């Protein structure tokens, strides 16, 4: 099984490397997001130039994270891709349907507070996690 062991190394190494790259870019994105959100207030006193630079860096790192995510997905095998695709579709659908209804709640005076985007992001994240777990269980 020498050849197969080599292939195993190739496949697992590739996935491991993609996973690591995605983790690094996601961490970088979170850090740059935190800088763009808090630094204007606590570090450079709303200096417009520095704030714009921080925001542009955050967006650039965000796009790089998307590329890393794409590479990660492409490196998975077809069943793993299917599980994640179904999970992403469900998360997007739930986010759209619940998000629009949630936004409507304030307009029709059923809630007094303003709907926040992070609530939808959290809902989509939880939906995605449950869908991935459910997908893996389905094919066990």
């Amino acid at each position: 099984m020498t050849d197969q062991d080599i292939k195993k190394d190739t496949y697992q190494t590739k996935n491991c490397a993609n996973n690591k790259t995605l983790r690094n870019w996601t961490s970088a994105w979170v850090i740059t997001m935190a800088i763009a959100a808090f630094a204007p207030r606590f570090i450079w006193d709303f200096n417009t130039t520095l704030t714009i630079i921080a925001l542009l860096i955050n967006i650039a790192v965000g796009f790089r994270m998307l590329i890393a995510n794409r590479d990660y997905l492409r490196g998975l095998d077809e069943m793993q891709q299917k599980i994640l695709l179904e999970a992403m579709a469900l998360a997007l659908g739930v986010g759209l349907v619940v998000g629009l209804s949630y936004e409507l709640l304030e307009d029709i005076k059923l809630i007094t507070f303003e709907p926040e985007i992070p609530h939808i992001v959290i809902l989509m994240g939880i939906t995605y996690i449950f869908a991935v777990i459910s997908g893996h269980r389905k094919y066990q």
Partner: protein
Amino acid sequence: MKNRLKVLRAERDWTQAQLASALEVSRQTINAIEKGKFDPSLPLAFKAARLFNLTIEEIFQDEVEVA
């Protein structure tokens, strides 16, 4: 779709992990295919056929009976 992947693997005394590495997929995918819970794509079926030196029809069979 039925398949003989588990039998063919056992004949060669391979583990699921070894077959997975040979086909460049995850062990979970091999497990799902063997249990008939996931149908592989045509390229993956061809890869399996090449690995076992068999035709695709000798490994995978359609469960729908043709009259």
